[in-house]
C-alpha cells in the first residue's frame, strides 16, 4: 500500500481529567491513514469518533498518545510559523452547514479567510479570482460570492464549507458527518463532489459518519469505534462481508436497506459487551485476522476467528 500520511498512535482524549466526572472520550486508539485513501470512521453517537477527528486536527490537546502527520507530531508546542504550515495541510468540513458558516460574513470573505491568513493571494483581484475558481470547483458560480450564508440551501452551504476547506490547498481533509444534515438527493451530489475532488487533487479523507451505506460507498477502509476504542478496522468490502467483532455485526444488522423484501426478513443482532467474558489481565488488542483486517480481540477470540475463517475457506 501507499505511504502513510497520518499515523495515530495510542491517542487518548480525556475530558475533566482528575475530576469525578472524567470522560474517556477516546481511550487509546491507533491507526494509520494512507496517502490518497478515504478512511471511514463509524460508530454510534458518543463513541468518540468526532473527538478523534478533532484531536487529529488539534482542535483539542490530546491527553496522551501521538498524531504524526508526515512523520511530524501534530500536538505539542509549535511556533506560529510551524502552526500555520501545519494548518494549511489539514482542513475540516463540519457537520452542520447552518452553524459552521459565519452568518455575518459574505461568502467571499468566508472562503477567503484562509487565503488571507496564509497570504496566498497577490492582490485583491487575485483573491477574487481564487474565490471564484473555488466556487466553480464546488459547483456554485461567482455570483454567489456576494451573498450571505442564509441565502443558500443546506446542500449549497455544505458546498461552501467544502470550498472553504479547499481554499488553502490542503492534502488531508477531515469530514465530520458532512452529509448527515442533508437530504438524500443532495447527499449524493455532495458525496460525488467529494469523490471528484479526491481524484482531481489527490486528497486524503477521514470521513466520519453514522450512515453506514454511504460510508461503505465512499471509503476504501473503515474503522468501527465503540466507547472510545477502535474495535475493527478493515477494507470496506471486507468489513461488510466478514464483520468479525460482535459490535460491528450488530451495527451492520441494524441498517435498514431500501428493499422491502430484505427488510421483512432482516433480524437485528444486539450487542452486549458481556459476551466477550474477558478475564482480568487478558491481553485485548487489535490483531490482524486476515490481511489488513484488524479486530480488537483477546488471544482466545483470535484463535476462534482464525478457526472460523479457515472453516469458511
Amino acid at each position: 500500500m501507499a505511504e502513510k500520511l497520518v499515523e495515530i498512535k495510542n491517542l487518548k482524549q480525556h475530558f475533566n481529567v482528575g475530576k469525578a466526572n472524567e470522560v474517556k472520550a477516546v481511550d487509546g486508539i491507533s491507526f494509520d491513514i494512507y496517502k490518497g485513501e478515504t478512511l471511514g470512521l463509524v460508530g454510534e453517537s458518543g463513541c468518540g469518533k468526532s473527538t478523534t477527528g478533532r484531536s487529529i486536527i488539534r482542535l483539542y490537546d490530546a491527553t496522551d498518545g501521538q498524531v504524526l502527520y508526515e512523520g511530524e507530531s501534530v500536538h505539542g508546542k509549535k511556533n506560529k510559523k510551524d502552526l500555520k504550515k501545519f494548518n494549511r495541510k489539514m482542513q475540516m468540513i463540519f457537520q452542520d452547514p447552518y452553524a459552521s458558516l459565519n452568518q455575518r460574513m459574505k461568502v467571499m470573505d468566508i472562503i477567503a479567510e484562509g487565503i488571507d491568513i496564509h497570504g496566498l493571494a497577490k492582490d485583491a483581484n487575485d483573491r477574487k479570482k481564487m474565490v471564484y475558481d473555488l466556487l466553480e470547483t464546488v459547483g456554485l458560480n461567482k455570483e454567489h460570492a456576494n451573498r450571505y450564508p442564509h441565502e443558500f440551501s443546506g446542500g449549497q452551504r455544505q458546498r461552501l464549507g467544502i470550498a472553504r476547506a479547499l481554499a488553502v490547498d490542503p492534502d488531508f481533509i477531515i469530514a465530520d458527518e458532512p452529509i448527515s444534515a442533508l437530504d438524500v438527493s443532495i447527499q449524493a451530489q455532495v458525496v460525488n463532489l467529494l469523490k471528484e475532488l479526491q481524484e482531481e487533487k489527490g486528497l486524503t479523507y477521514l470521513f466520519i459518519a453514522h450512515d453506514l451505506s454511504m460510508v461503505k460507498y465512499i471509503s476504501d477502509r473503515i474503522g468501527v469505534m465503540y466507547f472510545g476504542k477502535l474495535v475493527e478496522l478493515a477494507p470496506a468490502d471486507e468489513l461488510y462481508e466478514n464483520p468479525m467483532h460482535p459490535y460491528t455485526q450488530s451495527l451492520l444488522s441494524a441498517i435498514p436497506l431500501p428493499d422491502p423484501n430484505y427488510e421483512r426478513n432482516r433480524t437485528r443482532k444486539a450487542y452486549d459487551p458481556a459476551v466477550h467474558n474477558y478475564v482480568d489481565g487478558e491481553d485485548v488488542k487489535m490483531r490482524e485476522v486476515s490481511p489488513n483486517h484488524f479486530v480488537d480481540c483477546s488471544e482466545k477470540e483470535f484463535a476462534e476467528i482464525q478457526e472460523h475463517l479457515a472453516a469458511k475457506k
Partner: protein
Amino acid sequence: MEKILQVKDLELSFHTFGGEVKAIRGVNFDLYKGETLAIVGESGSGKSVTTKSIMRLLPEATSEFKNGEILFGGRDLTKLSDKEMQKIRGKDISMIFQDPMTSLNPTMPIGRQITEPILKHQKISKDEAKKVAIDLLRLVGMPKPELRMKQYPHQFSGGQRQRIVIAIALACNPQILIADEPTTALDVTIQAQILELMKDLQKKIDTSIIFITHDLGVVANVADRVAVMYGGKIVEIGTVDEIFYNPQHPYTWGLLSSMPSMDAEDAKLYAIPGTPPDLLDPPKGDAFALRSEYAMKIDMEQPPPFFKVSDTHMAATWLLHPEAPAVEPPEMVIERMKKFPGSRYYEGSAN
C-alpha cells in the same frame, strides 16, 4: 378497509414578505385503520407542512387553507375552531417530532409531561394518571419507570427521550399517530429499536401511523403504503412493494437510484441534478420536469394528472399517458423491477 382520515384537494399557502408560497398544491390521500403510510420527499416538498396542517399546528397569521378538506370522524379539521381542535390534538391525533432534544420541556419532570395529556383529555385523578404514565413508560421499554418519572429530560439519552415522546403521544390511545422524522436524529442501533417499538405498539393498540422520513431504508422497514411528495404535491402513491419494485415517476426513480446499494460497486452515485422548485413561483407543468431527463414538451406546459397503475398504485407523470413514448428507467430501477410480478421487466420469482 376503513378509512380513518381523508385528505382531499388540500391546498395551503404561506404569506411571506416575498409573496405567497404555495407549499401544498392539491394533496389527496386516505389513511386506513391500522396501516402505516410513509410520506417521503426532500425538504421543502411539503411533507411536514401536510402533517402539520392535519394537526393544525401552522401559524394562523401567515398560513392559509386555500382549498380542500381534511376529513376525520365526519368532521373537516380545516374548519374547526381552536377549542374544538384542542380536544382532538393529543387525544385522537397525536404527533412525535423529529428532535427529542427540543420537544420535551427541560424544566418539567417527565412524569408530569406524560400525565399532562391524560389529565387534560380524560376524567381521571392524578394518582390514576400517574399509574397510566408508569405503565406507558414500561410499554415503551424504559427500565425502572417509577424512579424515572421524577427525572428531568437532561437525565435521559436521545433514544430514551424519543421513547418518552412516544409515551406522551400514546398516552390517550390516539387513532392516528403522526411521526415526523422520529428517528432522523438517532443512531442506527437506536433507530432500529425505536422502529421495532413503534411497530410493536401499532400491533397492540391498532393505531394508524403517518410516518414522515427521507430515509428510504426506514420506509422499506415500516411502511405499508408510501406516498412520494415533490414540490407540494404527491407524485406517486402505492403499496411499499409497488413503490420500491415498480416505481413509475422519474422522481421516484431518482430517489431510489441516489441511495448507494450495499452490494453493488458503483463508480458514481446517481445524483438528481439541480435543486427543488421555488414554490413562490411554482412551475406551470410538472414540477420535476426541470430536473428530469425524461421531461417532454407537455411536462413544461401542463401538470400531469394521476394515472392508475393498479388499484392501489397511482403516479402523476405524463410518461404513463397512452400516447407517451416508452422510456427505459435507470438501470438500478430496472434491476428492482425484475423482482416484481406485474412490472414489464419481471423475470420470475425473486427468491
